């Protein structure tokens, strides 16, 4: 669906995007994470044909960036970082304008569909300037979807929104995910990426890592099992110290945290070992690292290797 090969963009000698190569499958929700100024928006702008790459190539649904720009624009929807609606005009006028520019055949039908879907129908004739931030963002999402694009680019879809509006937008993206669209989403919100994305790329001028959220967790930390005990966990560290499959062990008050390659295989033996050493196990669970921890770890590693 989206193929990117060595895509590079320089601005006055500064490399904003450095040899980015990626393949994104049809129907995939792809999270593009990175700090401010990492080149995420530049990447989106290149892929939506708004700016040209300095070198490298990209194609969307078989259409080449730089050669088939109009065809690409017909097939992608773009939610820009700021809604960029015409504030003096009504939501109806804004959307009918864009529907016509996107060559939609049933202009009024499509506009009505998305205004109703995003719960803006009752305010359709009000000037967009009177809308809240969340309503404007919903309207911008409607604009990006009017022509039913198979590929959707979302640049920071929940940036600057209050928690309620963010949740509303997230839920809607979640619904879109079910509709089989390919979604390329730039975000700072790691929790959002974790919940919505099939794969995640961490990007800072160049691609640092790309994988599914669960694989990223495993790559960095292995799988971590927590043994909740009825007593202090510290004395039990020695009992498991010689097990070769334990990658990392830690005792925190009454919790024993063990990083394992394959918990399903090793947990029974460990439980026997711990009980034999006098442990009173209350329950066992798997620790789930947040994407934020993963992201910060990667960024830290990157900074250390750069330094």
């Amino acid at each position, binding site marked *: 669906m989206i193929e990117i090969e060595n895509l590079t963009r320089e601005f006055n000698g500064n490399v904003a995007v450095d040899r980015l190569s990626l393949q994104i499958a049809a129907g995939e929700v792809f999270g593009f994470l990175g700090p401010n100024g990492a080149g995420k928006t530049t990447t989106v702008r290149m892929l939506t044909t708004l700016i040209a790459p300095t070198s490298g190539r990209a194609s969307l649904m078989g259409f080449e960036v730089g050669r088939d720009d109009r065809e690409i624009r017909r097939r992608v929807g773009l939610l820009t970082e700021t809604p960029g609606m015409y504030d*003096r005009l009504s939501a109806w006028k804004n959307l009918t304008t*864009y529907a*016509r520019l996107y060559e939609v055949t049933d202009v009024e039908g499509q506009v009505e569909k998305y205004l109703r879907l995003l719960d803006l129908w009752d305010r359709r004739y009000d000037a967009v300037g009177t809308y809240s931030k969340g309503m404007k963002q919903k309207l911008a999402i409607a604009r990006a979807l009017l022509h039913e694009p198979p590929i959707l680019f979302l640049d920071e879809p929940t940036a600057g929104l209050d928690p309620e509006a963010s949740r509303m937008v997230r839920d809607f993206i979640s619904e879109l995910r079910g509709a089989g669209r390919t979604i390329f989403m730039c975000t700072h919100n790691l929790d959002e990426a974790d919940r919505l994305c099939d794969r995640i790329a961490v990007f800072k001028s160049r691609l640092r890592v790309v994988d599914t959220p669960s694989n990223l967790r495993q790559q960095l930390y292995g799988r971590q099992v927590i043994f909740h005990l009825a007593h202090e966990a510290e004395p039990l560290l020695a009992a498991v110290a010689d097990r070769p499959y334990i990658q990392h062990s830690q005792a925190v008050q009454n919790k024993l945290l063990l990083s394992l390659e394959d918990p399903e295989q090793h947990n029974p033996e460990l439980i026997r070992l711990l009980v034999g050493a006098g442990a009173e196990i209350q329950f066992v669970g798997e620790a789930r690292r947040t994407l934020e921890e993963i992201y910060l770890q990667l960024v830290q590693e990157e900074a250390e290797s750069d330094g």
Partner: protein
Amino acid sequence: MDKVKTIISKEWAEVFKNKLVLFTVAFLPLLLVAMPLIMLPLMGSDPQEMDELPTALVGEMCTGLSQIECLQLYMMSIFTIMFMILPVMVPVTIAAYSIVGEKTTRSLEPLLATPITTLELLTGKMLAAVIPAVAVTWLTYLLFLTGIWFLTSAAVFRALLAPMWLLAILVVGPLLALFSVSIAIMVSSRVNDPRIAEQLSGAVAVPIILLLVGQSAGFILLSQELVLVIAAVVAILDIGLVYLAIQTFERESILTRWK
């Protein structure tokens, strides 16, 4: 063509909701109709006033007219030239706001992400400014002529309906509007403040003002031939400017350089 119409419709919807732009667009035409119509009844037939008129001009214009008719015709011909300033000044505000406005409201990026070509976008934006300017000029000129019909003699009215004036208003006017709009769009694409775009583009009116001064002082005698030459020159300039405006509209620079 559908996309051009869509852009025109969107631009007008925005302009007609912007009171400041609307006031700027309406004020000058109304002033231009009101001023001569107030002046006409106040004009006397003082021989001293006649002496102050440029001799060459009076000789050409006033054959077969009375003193008062000659004075009225002279004054109204000056105002008629001012109707050539209208299509230059009126669209500048609309066109200058056109691109800068999109930049400041951050609406240009989603607009450029649609499958619209630069030619369609700029044609839409140019026509959205040119059409009201021409309509306002023609409408106010019609009001002006109606006033002349009521307030002067048939001879003065006929003289102001001469082909030279009709050519100036009906042909040169729209060409000047396009000239002014092309420059305003080019300036608007390069600056970040609508006021700067407006001021820079407003400079386009200077040659017309010089023509006005030249005619009233008797240095330039506006004739049918001269109006035709002006029309031809402006038409050629228009073709060049429209081409230049489209060629120099760099989507990428506009998106990446604005702050």
